């Protein structure tokens, strides 16, 4: 059993388990699955700056902050005790393309030649970590949710605006990956 857990989990195990988080949250306390709201609550707690958008009652949503704190703990647990750090067995075609574009480190979940503290002070690292992060935070809030709140929770509860949002997530991702990212990697 523990040996099985230590292998990378296939999609047909991980996907249904992720899906079950939705009913479990509903049953546990009528909580709608969603992660990006936590960023809004953090803004409201730390830097409200008298902005109307951050005057919501975050105290009613503290469960969300406990949930994301749990994600950090889970990330640590998996990496430390469940063999969570290893080369990712990606499609060789993808690896070849990425090598051609200039990615060098394939030894972990993220390429360390792009995501590291040293790289933060290069133009490429700045775009990957700071500009990218900003777009994720700005975009998810503007869209009213992220992959969890829209793509999983929203579509599963048959809400068409979430389907629209998800299609836009994918379009944005395709445009970046196919037309812009190759140039950024080469910086």
């Amino acid at each position, binding site marked *: 059993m523990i040996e099985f857990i230590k292998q990378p*989990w296939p*999609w*047909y195990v991980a996907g249904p388990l*992720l*899906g*079950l*988080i939705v*009913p479990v949250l*509903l*049953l*546990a306390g009528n909580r*709608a699955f969603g992660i990006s709201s936590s*960023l809004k609550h*953090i*803004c409201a707690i730390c830097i409200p*700056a008298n*902005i109307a*958008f951050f005057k919501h009652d975050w105290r009613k949503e503290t469960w969300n902050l406990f*949930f994301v704190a*749990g*994600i*950090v*703990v*889970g*990330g*640590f*647990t998996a*990496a430390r005790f*469940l063999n969570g*750090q290893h080369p990712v067995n*990606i*499609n060789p075609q993808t690896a070849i*393309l*990425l090598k051609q574009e200039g990615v060098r480190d394939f030894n972990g*979940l*993220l390429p360390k030649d792009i*995501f590291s503290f040293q790289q933060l002070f290069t133009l490429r690292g700045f775009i990957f970590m700071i*500009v990218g*992060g900003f*777009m*994720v*935070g*700005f975009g*998810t*809030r503007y*869209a*009213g949710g992220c*992959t*969890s709140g*829209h793509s*999983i929770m929203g579509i*599963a509860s048959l809400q068409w605006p*979430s389907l629209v*949002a998800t299609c*836009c997530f994918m379009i*944005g991702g395709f445009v*970046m990956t*196919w037309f812009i*990212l190759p140039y*950024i990697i080469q910086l």
Partner: protein
Amino acid sequence: MRNIKYLVLGTVFGIILVKSEVISWFRIQEMFRLQAFHMYGIIGSAIVVAMVSILIIRRFQIKTISGNDITIPTKEFNWGNVYGGLIFGLGWAITGACPGPLFAQIGSGFLVITVTLLSAIAGTWVYGLLRDKLHH
């Protein structure tokens, strides 16, 4: 400490994200290059399981463990779904992480992603600041 159960659930969620490699930048690249089924399988099967669960909860009017009604907030369409969605998509392909995986990446030892998370918080804040000026 009624919130402890959410900490535990978050932990389970984080473990799944790491063990299924959803938090891997490489997996997101594969997905957007249409060179693997992995991510589509995960998101697709998660949606199906969540959808069937919600149908069952609604059909049998199941209540929470403390006996309260279960209500799912409705999402009204606004143009932010489109503009914001596109911006998030562009960012997702760069960072290789949506908000959930950012937290899991930090936990799994990529401490530099704390900077990405802070930047995402800054992005959320700037949205709040500019909200009235943006088209919705």
